[in-house]
Every structure is written in C-alpha cells, then in structure tokens.
C-alpha cells in the first residue's frame, strides 16, 4: 500500500522563527518524487518544494528546505524565518514513477504563523 502520514494536524510558530513539519510515507517503489504543497486560506494549492528520491542531496527553495531520509521514508519540511504569508495548510505527497501517475497525499498540517 502507498500511504503518507502527517502526524501533526495543527502547528503554530512565531513570526521569524523556524518550524519543521513532519511527513512519513510508505511505498515499495524505488523510483518516486516527493512534494510539499501549501494551500493558503481560500487560495490555490501551490508547489513549495520537490525532491527526487534518487538524489541524496536535500532540496532547498529559499526559506524552505527538506530533510529527506530515504531509508526511514521520512520527508520533513523546514520553514526558516517564518512569515505571516506562510500561514496555510501544508500537504506532503509522493508520486511513484513506475506504477502510475497519481499523487498520494497526507491529511495535511495546518500551520499558523503568529505575529
């Protein structure tokens, strides 16, 4: 079975602080991509960051970085210098490349940045 687990339904962080959102997944595939998407309140879901499973180096995108532990099937997202605009629902997802094209999502983590 292909599953994604986000164990933190809600989190909060003070503006300018750092926060880490956790994500674990389960798959028997060896070739896949991992993603973090964010959906701000009443707005479109947008891509935050993407990681190819074959790459050992952790992906970074400005203030966003991941800690990808392939053996542990863990893919956490770190947000540095949190800003009010980071308030959103964050979804972890992966797509196996050999067995189809559907994304598998977690249940999401609602992050609130406190001024």
């Amino acid at each position, binding site marked *: 079975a292909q599953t994604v687990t986000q164990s933190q339904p809600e989190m909060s962080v003070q503006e300018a602080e750092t926060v880490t959102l956790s994500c674990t997944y389960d798959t028997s595939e060896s070739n896949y991509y991992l993603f973090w998407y964010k959906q701000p309140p009443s707005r*479109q879901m947008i891509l935050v960051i993407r990681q190819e499973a074959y790459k050992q180096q952790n992906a970074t995108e400005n203030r966003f970085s991941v800690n990808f532990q392939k053996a542990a099937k863990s893919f956490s997202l770190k947000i540095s210098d949190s800003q009010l605009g980071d308030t959103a629902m964050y979804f972890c*997802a992966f797509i196996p490349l050999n067995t189809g094209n559907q*994304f598998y999502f977690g249940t999401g983590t609602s992050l609130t940045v406190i001024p």
Partner: protein
Amino acid sequence: EAGVTQFPSHSVIEKGQTVTLRCDPISGHDNLYWYRRVMGKEIKFLLHFVKESKQDESGMPNNRFLAERTGGTYSTLKVQPAELEDSGVYFCASSHGQGATQYFGPGTRLTVT
C-alpha cells in the same frame, strides 16, 4: 500563463440532484487529474486523463461519477445522483508530462444536503 481554473468555486445541492464540475487545465498540458478531499482526510486520486483518453480511473468511487474531457481540453466531472458522502473539495490538476509536477486548481467545494 494562466493557471488551472475550476468552476464553480462552491456548490450546494440537495441529495439526489445532479452537479457538474468543470476544470480548465494549463494550456498545453496533456495530463489532467481529478482528486477529492473529504473533510479532515487526505486528498485522494479519482482519475487521470491523457488528452481525451482516460488513463486511469481506479479512484472513481462508483458509477454515479462520470468524467469527460472533450477534445482533450477542459474536463467535466458529473455527479448524478449526488449523495451526502460526496461532499468535499474536488481538485483538478494538470501536468505537462507523466511524473511531472502537477499544478492544482483552487478546488470546488461541494456540499450535498
């Protein structure tokens, strides 16, 4: 470049009625996907089009759901007749190639009363 658009943004219907959701993908994207999120649960895959053909419809809940993609452009998802458990947010996504990043629309929130 325009993103993925969905219409309507919100629909409230009574049990037994019919609703049709529409998705316009990013221009040039052959791959179009439908997903659904029931409140508090994960976003689940419904189906995948490549151009006008259904590549994978393994996530469609039952035969009350009908998806079409006429001419390989926009897609519609019809629910007929709607049941209470169909309530949720329906997302559409598109991508340029298979396995590529999928770009999501804002979703349609469907409420069945």
